[in-house]
């Protein structure tokens, strides 16, 4: 693991892994979508609308999972000063925002026919909206602070503070009286969902997770290249500056 802290080794690993991960993601997505559209039955109450679940639930799980990845990376930055931790954290934030956006929009499109409202300010929806805003704030923070080291530390602290929102999202449906339904897959009494719907859901969740892993690796690779480019630009600017600095005039050698 320590070897992959070296960015050059990490780039080599990424170039090998990415095509395989991308192919596996595409295959799993194809299988998951086929099961979700053509094999899984319509719900006895919700009808065909239940098919939104195969997008909404994996996106919701991933929105929290990505934040946990970022929290681990923030600890890596602040505690162990791992050279790739802040690159991993910076690369994950826009992806987290993307999957949270999918979760919110598909939830809204599911809520309108089922609840009769596009949006309600209940605890689960509001805490996920807060998560989306945290992701956007982190992206903005990285762009605002020019020094990458300072930006990494500020983002890491902000990420750790924001992690308090994750248990709030998870347990909001138990702690408060919400319109959103309680957990129906990861619960003490086992899944409360029929196997014919559970398997497509789990396959879609795995496909989404692999999609994130692939995109995250590619985004970290970009981050390493961006830093390499920054370093090269500084070296080139230093070289150009020293070329134009006037040298002290020679007094000539005594003969």
């Amino acid at each position, binding site marked *: 693991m320590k070897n992959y802290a070296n960015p050059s080794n990490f780039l080599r690993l990424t170039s090998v892994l990415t095509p395989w991960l991308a192919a596996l993601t595409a295959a799993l997505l194809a299988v998951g979508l086929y099961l979700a559209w053509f094999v899984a039955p319509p719900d006895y109450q919700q009808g065909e609308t239940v098919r939104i679940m195969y997008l909404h639930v994996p996106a919701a799980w991933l929105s929290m999972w990505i934040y946990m990845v970022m929290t681990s990376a923030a600890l890596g930055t602040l505690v162990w000063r791992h050279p790739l931790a802040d690159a991993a954290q910076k690369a994950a934030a826009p992806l987290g925002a993307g999957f949270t*956006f999918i979760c919110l929009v598909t939830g809204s*499109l599911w809520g309108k026919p089922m609840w009769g409202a596009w949006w309600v300010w209940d605890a689960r929806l509001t805490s996920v909206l807060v998560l989306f805003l945290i992701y956007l704030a982190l992206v903005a923070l990285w762009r605002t602070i020019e020094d990458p080291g300072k930006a990494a530390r500020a983002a890491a602290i902000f990420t750790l503070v924001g992690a308090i929102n994750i248990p709030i999202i998870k347990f909001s449906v138990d702690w408060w009286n919400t319109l959103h339904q309680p957990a129906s897959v990861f619960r003490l009494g086992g899944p409360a969902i029929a196997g014919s719907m559970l398997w497509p859901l789990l396959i879609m969740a795995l496909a989404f997770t692999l999609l994130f892993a692939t995109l995250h690796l590619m*985004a970290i690779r970009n981050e390493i290249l961006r830093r390499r*480019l920054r370093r090269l630009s500084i070296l080139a600017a230093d070289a150009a500056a020293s070329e134009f600095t006037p040298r002290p005039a020679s007094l000539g050698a005594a003969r």
Partner: protein
Amino acid sequence: MTADPHTGFVAAAYAIAFVAVAAMIFVILRDYRTLKRDLARFPARGERAARDDEGSL
């Protein structure tokens, strides 16, 4: 499926998710191409020096 009165909501959810995922993939690939093009402007010697200096990132 098309007989269901809420098919439009299902189709919209899948369409928006597809566009969002495609946008994430597009942005990452475009970023990669731009970075590779910009890096190619520097001579290999400078790139080696920058790589050697990367241990601390």
